[in-house]
């Protein structure tokens, strides 16, 4: 099992469109992918799960992956969750 932590940076948080992006990425791996926020642990391959985290800007998520491609899965999830989801940056 691999574990890591990531902070949500984009201003709007993980709302509907990012949630779909997260699920899409998670399902591209064979391993199981879990996200945890404040004790609430969900399956990242479920959009309802990702939505129910209500991950707003600044919150920390624990990622855990388990399976044949768990390392790539951890790297992939860390990348997508930390990416800002291509949102317009207010400060620019």
């Amino acid at each position, binding site marked *: 099992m691999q574990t890591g932590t990531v902070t949500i940076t984009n201003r709007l*948080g993980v*709302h*509907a469109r990012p*949630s779909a992006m997260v699920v899409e990425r998670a399902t591209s791996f064979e391993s199981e992918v879990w996200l945890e926020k404040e004790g609430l642990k969900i399956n990242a391959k479920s*959009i309802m799960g990702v939505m*129910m985290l*209500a991950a707003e800007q600044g919150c920390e998520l624990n990622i855990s992956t388990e399976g044949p491609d768990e390392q790539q899965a951890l790297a992939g999830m860390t990348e997508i969750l930390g990416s800002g989801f291509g949102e*317009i940056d*207010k400060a*620019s």
Partner: protein
Amino acid sequence: MAKPSQIQGIPASAGVALGEARVVYSWDTLVPERSILPEEVPAEKLKVDLAIEKTIADLTRIRESAGKTLGGATSKIFDAQLLIAGDFQFLQKVKDGISKRLVNAESVYSSLIEESTATLRKSRDPYMRQMQTDIEAVGKKALLHMTGDNPAPERRFPPNTILVAKKLTPAETLHYQELGVAGIVTSEGTAHSHMALIARSLYLPAVVAVERAQNKIRNGVRLIVDGGLGKVFVAPDDALWESYKGRVSPDALANITRLSELKHIPPVTTDGHTVELSANVELPGVRDKALAECGIGVGLYRTEFIYLQSNHFPDEDEQFEYYDNTAAQFAPHKVVMRTFDLGSDKYVEELQPLQESNPALGWRGIRTSLGIPAIFRTQLRAILRASTRGNVRILLPMLTDIDELRRAQRVIKRVMVELRNEGVEFDRRIPLGAMIEVPSAALTAECFARQTSFLAVGTNDLAQYTLAVDRDNNRVANLYRMFHPANLKLIKLTIEAGRKFGKPVSICGEMASDLQAAPLLIGMGATSLSMTPGKLYSAAALISALSYQEMKELADITLAAATLKETENILRQFYEKAKEKAPEAFSEPA
């Protein structure tokens, strides 16, 4: 027979609808839990699969028809809902719950939906709340399929059905309108909710915040919905029914049918003065083609609706798709794209770090655009890219000082340089206009006229700011009088400024479509009136029956009047005369 009664709610979308009530219950109120036998488990699980299949079919169909009537980006609202409906992991949890708890499918499904939205419900972030709404909308649909009690059947509603519900999402509003609903009454909601905005753009009369509407109104009872006053009459007597009959809002389709008659009524006065008529448009719609064929352009494209009816901020390509479509649809007629007028009465919590105690005087319109250059630039890029497709113009809202105009012009110039460097085609001489809707801008209208290509008077805000009256506040709404001499003077100043510098001045608030105000505004020298499409026919009929000379005289006497009472009397008398001269302007479409 029910006893006649009258209930007051909040006016959300103007217009009158008469019909029979159809009460729709919310999904979360009626999901009884029932124990099942172990051998019933497979049947209950199958019920889940079948309901989800139907839900996905429903959503796909709504998405397609939304794409057709409101354009591509609108249909994206439903993408998230489709993913939610088909969430494999979630459905697995539902099925596991059925075998483990040995209870019926709908009770497991509804409790898990409830659980999924628990954290979202606590959030104050509008984006998080939107996800809750999306999940609940899907849950509602799937549960109705599971229980087999579907209040939104595939067939159309009988004509003149008035929907009574707890609350409706924008998607449901759109769906019910397609099914032929004539009016909406909800027990929750505000005049500024997305549902209300969508209802207004669909010309669907709606009253919201009618306390316990679902309990007070029985299925099948006769209703009168007065969306303008926010009143619902339950089981009215025949006299009231008859008196309201003549005021029924023609539905959007009737308006389109009538639009085709517009071609035969050029807006030219009896003494040969032409007035430009154009439409206020919120979202692309089926009427666009009919309008363009009648030679009508868009005097005010309220671009913020693209954002309001979607659940995310539209990116450049998404905006371009809207602007490009509209520009092409109306070409060669003008399309005046007003940059986002967000803030104030239009939801932008996600843009506002602070709750404003006085949003009408707060961060809105051009202030927001200049405050978040990334959003402003994205929108300008999309508009400029679309400018080669038709006759596109840019209009800036909420200007209070010439410096704001200059700053906006600098941003536009920079964006143009950017596009040129990228080799992107655009109209280099795209006309830029200033919206005059604040007294400070009207008083300095000459500065704006000198530096822009045209002026547009936003009469609703101008009157609100001049008279210090919030029309949505019932206690002071009666003080909102558009014919107040002070308001007329500011409009006159603006028109004079335009005339001095040879720039056209259009009027694009509600005054433009008011049959008492239109002759006055034309007499004052307004070159163009922009209004909701449903009012164009009446305006054209009125203009073609009157002379420019009599309108100018009307303007002279009205402006000379010192008090509100006098101006209102003068206009009423003129209106009565006009009614005789142009009866067709005052008749409802057949």
